[in-house]
């Protein structure tokens, strides 16, 4: 009973329409748009604040998988039988002389030496291949999601960080079977230009990285937002966010970069704790807008702590609650992402099989069985589409006139 329900065309149609409707509503919901309002309470209560990871959508995809599986199962034998010439009862019947029928069908693209003629015989499998591709894709996406992990990190020009350093990566997404830790990869940002002009394209980010992977293997790469770099299965991409960064030199501890966040068009700041653990705030005010392609111009750097404000000069030491500290400059930070996605080939296989099925569907497949012995009789013809045209052309031919068509 359940199997019969799963195989029913009505269920398949209902699932597809539901998924399409859900997708359309999900894509247009105001709270999923960039800069849109927060999700309303009813959407949160129904777990629709993130529509495409909601249980409703996942249940729909699971139902699609089950329905597709049931519809595809057992169909292979029927297609193979049609290909052998065991045609369904709905096959078209054309009456006439065997030789004339053969000539007519050959003109229509059918071919074969025996009584069974085929037109694009492989294309009979188009629908089946497409459905298998859907199954592979859904399974592939599941596998990819389970194994995938990724995150974001920021680097200031000249700064080196290991992705495993505490707090180095944020906005981490991790599948249930993904590695528990970020990859063992250290990244040095050698050069960063947030407004690099490349011929033919609008100015955009460009970074030169030195990456050191497991076993100390080192690699240099220049990346932009068009493509990333793959190091031992970890792909590093340039992200779009950037900002100013204050570099501090702390005696005995080396240099530290403090990434500042934009607060106004001309001001960026960062909340920190000083060496003594007190809350402090670095603020940089700029002459030109922070995003000005010419650069920010003159800078004013100040430290706000406990109601006091100290203006900082590059190279001059200041009290930071511990060892002597000084600023060595204001630079740019760039943002990057890392991704590990060992399940991706399964997704790509799904895409490839689906497209193969779609391509096969375009060919007008058919199988014809001629009367035995080439004598007059009835030919059975099964075509995936165009039966009425084929029948009309045969009738027109046997009636002695050319198939209907305009004169020009």
């Amino acid at each position, binding site marked *: 009973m359940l199997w019969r329900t799963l195989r029913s*065309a009505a269920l*398949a*149609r209902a699932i*597809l*329409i539901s*998924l*399409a409707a859900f*997708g*359309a509503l*999900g*894509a*247009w919901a105001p709270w*999923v*748009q*960039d*800069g849109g309002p927060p999700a309303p309470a009813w959407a949160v209560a129904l777990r629709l604040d993130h529509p*495409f990871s909601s249980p409703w959508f996942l249940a729909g995809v699971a139902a699609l998988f089950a329905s597709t599986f049931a519809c595809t199962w057992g169909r292979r034998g029927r297609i193979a039988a049609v290909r052998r010439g065991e045609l369904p009862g709905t096959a078209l019947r054309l009456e006439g002389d065997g030789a004339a029928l053969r000539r007519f069908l050959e003109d229509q693209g059918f071919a074969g030496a025996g009584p069974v003629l085929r037109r694009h015989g492989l294309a009979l499998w188009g*629908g089946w291949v497409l459905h298998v591709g859907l199954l592979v894709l859904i399974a592939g996406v599941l596998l990819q999601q389970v194994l995938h992990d*990724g995150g974001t990190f920021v680097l200031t020009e000249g700064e080196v960080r290991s992705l495993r350093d505490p707090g180095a990566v944020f906005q981490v997404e991790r599948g249930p079977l993904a590695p528990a830790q970020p990859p063992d990869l250290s990244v040095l940002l050698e050069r960063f230009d947030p407004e690099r002009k*490349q*011929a*033919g*394209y*609008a100015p*955009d*980010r460009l970074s030169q990285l030195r990456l050191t992977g497991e076993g100390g293997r080192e690699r240099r790469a220049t990346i*932009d*937002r*068009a*493509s*990333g770099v793959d190091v031992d299965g970890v*792909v590093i*991409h340039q992200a779009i966010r950037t900002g100013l960064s204050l570099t501090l030199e702390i005696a005995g501890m080396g240099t530290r970069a403090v990434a500042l966040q934009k607060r106004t068009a001309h001001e960026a700041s960062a909340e920190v704790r000083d060496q003594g653990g007190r809350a402090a705030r670095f603020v940089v005010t700029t002459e030109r807008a922070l995003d000005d392609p010419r650069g920010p111009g003159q800078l004013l750097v100040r430290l706000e702590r406990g109601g006091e404000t100290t203006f900082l000069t590059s190279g001059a030491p200041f009290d930071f609650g511990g060892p002597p500290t000084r600023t060595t400059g204001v630079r740019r930070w760039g943002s990057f*992402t*890392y*991704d590990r*996605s060992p399940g*991706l080939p399964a*997704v*790509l296989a799904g*895409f490839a099989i*689906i*497209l193969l099925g*779609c*391509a096969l*569907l*375009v060919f*007008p497949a058919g199988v014809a069985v001629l009367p035995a012995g080439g004598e007059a009789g009835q030919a059975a013809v099964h075509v*995936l*589409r*165009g039966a*009425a*045209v084929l029948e*009309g052309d045969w009738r027109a031919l046997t009636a002695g006139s050319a198939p*209907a*068509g*305009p*004169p*020009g």
Partner: protein
Amino acid sequence: MQSLLFWAAVTAYALATAGFFLGLAFEQPAWRRAAHLVALAGLAPHAAVIGLRWAEVGHGPYNTRYEVLSFQAFLLVAAWGLLALRSANVRSLGVLVLPVAFLLMGFSVSTFGLKKEVPIIFKSWWLVLHIGFAKLFGVSILLAACTAGAFLWRRRRPGALPSLPSQARLDLYAHQFLLSAFLFLGVMIAAGALWANQSWGRYWGWDPIETTSLVTWIAFGVILHFRVLHRWEGARMAWLTLVALAFALVTLYVVAVMVPTIHNSYMVGS
């Protein structure tokens, strides 16, 4: 110079449209043949103006409403014109195809003077596949809709335009074009996903156009199910083909104009 070539192409399509209407109304096959040739001749200045703009801005026709729609019209006329060289049946569809091309040109000219640099993420070979198949998808669904429209016209007034192909043949053509559109949309989505993976490390991000493309592909799947499983054909399928066109137009043009998306640049109009 570009303006002159553009208007030469528009004029050719307008003349060809008039030729087809008159040729069908007065049952003059010679006029239709002449109109076909005029439309094909219009492709020459059209290709030239596309090439000149390409050379001027340094990128292909995929980054403003003018470039996108004008190139879409070019491909539509070229695809129909070439198919029509092989089949008089397809040639008669010019009466529906050419007005569509004319309208696309008219809509595109509103941003003729707009020239913009493309973002750096366009530095990818996936762009060629993604956009190329988007164009083929657009052409295929427009041809499917024109054929479905011709079917409905023929059905309502069987004797009015005897030069159009038979209803059964129009139904078959519409189905064939719809299947091609289904394939091309699938390739467009897959190429876009691979491109996104190359640029951002994720093949799917539920961007409004990504999602709408998927919804459209599913809608096409539903429509094809009606045809294949339930043997729907004729007028019902013709209407569903027009529904498919509506989905395609929303995917290709409406979302990019109305909703913030990573695809806004290709329909930018100001």
